[in-house]
């Protein structure tokens, strides 16, 4: 779509704790043009003295009129995330810009099987894809491989456990045994498995996780041209 992107005022409709350190904010964005799963928004905070800070957050929800949801992880030394997780209340307004990011997206019209590989809070845009798949009634086969430290860190765990037919979810827990009995440990080749036919792959998470997962996928024979990645920060700006 060719259109000028502007900062808009969003109103907080609902807040939902997800884990001990993460919260979902449901926002009403009056001129929301719609979005594709995988896209993100930039959120900008302004202090009374005019100081501004901006961060990017993946949209967690499937398209739903002027409503969008973002799931924010509170980072230990964060400047913006603690405010969004602990400070914001229903009725507050936030400045945001979006949707942005037209490459890392899943289109519901696609019938090709999809493999989603999530590291930590990289699960947010991938869960948006899963939600879009379910909401549109798509029958494309989906598999989500979600790496997190412990079960308590898994976002939307209940929703994932109740995933419908055609959607497979495998948890890879690095610090404890997974509910399916997989021993604790980082993502390995046999967690991913080989492709059987064309697969669109989406990998999202911290940069180190994405590099490592992408290398494994290519080693296993996944088509590099069909692997899309989104890297979250390493150092620099909590």
């Amino acid at each position, binding site marked *: 779509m060719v259109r000028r992107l502007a900062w808009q005022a969003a109103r907080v409709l609902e807040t939902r704790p997800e884990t001990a350190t993460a919260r979902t904010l449901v926002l009403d964005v009056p001129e929301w043009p719609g979005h594709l799963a995988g896209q993100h928004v930039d959120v900008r905070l302004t202090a009374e003295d005019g100081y501004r800070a901006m961060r990017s957050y993946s949209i967690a929800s499937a398209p739903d009129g002027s409503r969008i949801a973002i799931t924010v992880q509170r980072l230990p030394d964060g400047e913006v995330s603690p405010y969004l997780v602990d400070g914001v209340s229903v009725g507050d307004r936030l400045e945001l810009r979006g949707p942005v*990011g037209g490459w890392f997206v899943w289109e519901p019209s696609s019938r090709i099987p999809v493999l989603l590989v999530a590291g930590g809070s990289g699960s947010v845009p991938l869960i948006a894809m899963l939600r879009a798949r379910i909401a549109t009634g798509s029958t494309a086969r989906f598999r989500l491989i979600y790496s997190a430290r412990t079960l308590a860190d898994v976002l939307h765990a209940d929703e994932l456990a109740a995933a419908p037919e055609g959607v497979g979810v495998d948890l890879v827990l690095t610090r404890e045994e997974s509910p399916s009995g997989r021993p604790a440990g980082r993502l390995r080749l046999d967690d991913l498995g080989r492709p059987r036919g064309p697969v669109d792959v989406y990998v999202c998470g911290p940069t180190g996780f994405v590099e490592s997962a992408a290398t494994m996928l290519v080693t296993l024979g996944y088509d590099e041209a069909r692997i899309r990645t989104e890297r979250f920060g*390493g150092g620099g700006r909590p």
Partner: protein
Amino acid sequence: MTTQHEYVDGNRLAGPLADVFAVDITAASTSCIGCGRRSVVAQLHVYVVGEGYVARCPGCQDPVLRYARTSTGGVLDLRGTLSLQVPLPG
């Protein structure tokens, strides 16, 4: 010591470059003048220093695209790519 990964990728440029381009730029193709590798902007390795962005070729690490948001506007340097191929609606 584990390898430090201090970069993100070009998906992060979607918002900042929306100030400059009317279309989403993350799906645009670039050709690195250093090694010739073609990448979409989303695939570039992006080093972020405040509101300064350095998007490097995933192959040879040369800067392909640089952008900074300053007090008065944005400065975009595209010297590191032969061209920017932008998909536009027909």
